[in-house]
């Protein structure tokens, strides 16, 4: 079967530029929304997955769900610390950080509205357990003082978080001595200080969580089983990465379900646009179709030519929409994570998967919008079509 040259379909689009631009523009907007939503979700996941280290575990009070609600008494923390699976650092100390995690309300710089930010009081080995965190300005806090360091997103968005400035919470003044970069992780939205100092100021006797590094990541199941069945403890043991993934589940599901529902609804509009355009395209060229058939092109060839035209339209929309979505990677969004009840900043992240998914989505829109008009074109009888001129 002889195929109609590709140029025929493409040049048809060029001839009716305004219509092409409007139809492809509608599709581009749909692709943009679709890709932007997936990018937002990918960014959120990336931030929270990056927060956890694969060989770290995080221990919380049973069924507490979040670090804020968790509480671990000193004796319980000591039992966790002495487990044989836990790695020993170069200095001979166990790689364990008993931490105090609280939320404080601070006004945002641009709006002045108070938002919850996470304050983490770290144990001795706390920074060593998070190798992804680097100090980018100033220096690390000193233990036993009221010095604090702030994450990059906090320094950017909140008042009173510059180096040398002071934050007041827990009845004391805390001096900011450094800014750290958490490599896009959730730590970027946190304030860090000495755990023991924080416990005193917040009048707490119990830690919030215990973070520890395993000497061998494979020993996790054995450790979890032992700790969770220990009658002295009422604790949950999770891999750190898994814990932070769970922290984002509600927000991530919300973004994805809302976003995909919207994209599908919007795509109905865009498909209708494509259908209108293609029907008009067929109607205007009835005589032409008759001529092509008379020249010996089969029905199948006509069908393909019109489908190619519709798909080209959709791919044009895809290219424009994705290009616009790429610009969104420059944007960083900050919102409250419902589960942890604290501020979390993350960016739009473009992954190869999203490029492929949006491509498939645009292709589907083009085919769905083009198939009925193309069938109509293919079904025309040669005589009727030629007479229409």
């Amino acid at each position, binding site marked *: 079967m002889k195929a109609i040259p590709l140029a025929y379909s493409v040049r048809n689009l060029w001839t009716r530029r*305004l219509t092409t631009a*409007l139809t492809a523009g509608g599709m581009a907007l749909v692709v943009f929304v679709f890709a932007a939503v997936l990018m937002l979700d990918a960014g959120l996941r990336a931030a929270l997955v990056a927060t956890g280290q694969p060989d770290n575990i995080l221990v919380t009070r049973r069924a507490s769900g979040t670090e804020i609600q968790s509480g671990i008494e000193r004796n319980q923390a000591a039992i966790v610390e002495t487990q044989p699976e836990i790695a020993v650092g170069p200095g001979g100390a166990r790689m364990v950080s008993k931490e105090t995690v609280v939320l404080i309300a601070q006004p945002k710089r641009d*709006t002045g509205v108070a938002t919850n930010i996470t304050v983490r009081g770290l144990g001795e080995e706390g920074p060593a357990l998070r190798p992804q965190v680097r100090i980018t300005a100033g220096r690390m806090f000193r233990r036993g003082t009221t010095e604090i360091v702030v994450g990059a997103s906090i320094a950017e968005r909140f008042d009173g978080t510059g180096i040398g400035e002071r934050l007041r919470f827990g009845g004391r003044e805390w001096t900011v001595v450094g800014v750290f970069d958490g490599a896009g992780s959730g730590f970027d939205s946190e304030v860090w200080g000495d755990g023991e100092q924080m416990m005193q100021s917040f*009048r707490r006797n119990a830690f919030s969580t215990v973070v520890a590094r395993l000497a061998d990541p494979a020993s996790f199941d054995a450790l979890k089983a032992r700790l969770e069945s220990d009658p002295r403890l009422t604790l949950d043991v999770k891999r750190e990465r898994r814990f932070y993934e769970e922290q984002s589940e509600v927000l991530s599901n919300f973004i994805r379900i809302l976003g995909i529902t919207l994209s599908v609804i919007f795509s109905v509009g865009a498909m209708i646009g494509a259908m209108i355009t293609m029907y008009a395209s067929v109607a205007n060229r009835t005589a032409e179709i008759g001529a092509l058939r008379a020249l010996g092109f089969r029905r199948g060839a006509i069908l393909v030519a019109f489908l190619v035209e519709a798909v080209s339209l959709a791919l044009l929309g895809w290219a424009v929409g994705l290009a616009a979505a790429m610009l969104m990677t420059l944007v960083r969004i900050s919102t409250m994570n*419902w589960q942890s*009840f604290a501020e979390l900043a993350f960016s739009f992240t473009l992954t190869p998967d999203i490029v492929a998914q949006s491509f498939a989505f645009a292709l589907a829109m083009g085919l769905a919008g083009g198939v009925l008009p193309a069938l109509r074109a293919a079904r025309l009888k040669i005589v009727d079509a030629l007479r229409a001129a």
Partner: protein
Amino acid sequence: MQFLKLVLRNSLRHKLRTGLTVLGLVVAILAFGLLQTVVDAWYAGAESAAPNRLVTRNAISLTFSMPLHYRDKIRGVDGVRTVGAANWFGGIYQDPKNFFPQFAIDPAPYFAMYPEYRVNDGELHAFLRDRKGAVIGRKLATTYGFKLGDTIPLQGTIYPGTWSFTVRAIYDGAEAKTDTSQMFFHWDYVNETVKAKTPRRADQVGVFVVQIDDPARSAEVSRAIDRQFVNSLAETLTETEKAFQLGFVAMTEAIVVAIRIVSFVVIFIILAVMANTMAMTARERLAEYATLKALGFGPGYVARLVFGESVAIAIIGAALGIAATFPVSAAFGAKMGTLFPVFEVSGATVALQIGCALVVGVAAALLPGRRAARVKIVDGLRAIG
């Protein structure tokens, strides 16, 4: 009259195309209406806040509590009528997905301060007499099929352990915007249980709801309350209930802004579709427009024909879309259950829908209308579809 007839006849010439355009409009207007309603639902808490209620909380953040004895000190502040303690309970009913708010409260003052929660006296007394009793909202009762006398088990997250409460009363909302997806039980009961298990965490209150005599004095009374606790271990922050609720909205502002932007994107999508329809229509009829002009009709009349047709299609689409918004949002709200306590299509949403449809109708006809008005008779008559 003649003009309207012409416009209507014109719009029905390509039944398929007009039908598809109208369908696209219906989808777009419907999606826009739903998104606006979602945004409204976000603000529902702030909308139903009363001007004479203040909320006092720990100044550090909401996750810190205040000692119980603050209640008496607050009650002593000039201008304060009633004070009630309230604690966010954060329990899980069977699965974390089944989210609904639970509060441990001082029952007597609380229901006096919230007249919009309507409980009949008999049920309220039954609740007051039963220390393990609970009051639940009508929407919550319907969502999970709770009846009077049922036991609701909750897995505590903030207060460890498994708790069970007996439904003693069901409240209705005074208005459609009242949140009836909440559950209330006795603060005293929770506190006593906590005292037995972890005495250190007992006698601590999350927030105090304060009713004042004169809403105009809210700022002054707020400051007076906070002044009582300056330099104490738990300094307080008092604000109006509305400001308190808006604080929650502000924390998730980025999401609200995104939804708002997206809701206008759909309008642009349909504008592109509509403009395309009108452009094709006008292009096909250039010969007719030239004929009309040759017969003596002015360019204004021809342009009005194009605008009339565009706006007519937009209005039909909008009318159907708005009509569909109500049943669809009711179904959506029911599906979301207690996640969106209040899900009502507001008058402002409908007005916005109409406004957007008119803008789409007019904007879509701008270029084609200009082209039709400017076409030269000779060129137009020469033009072939």
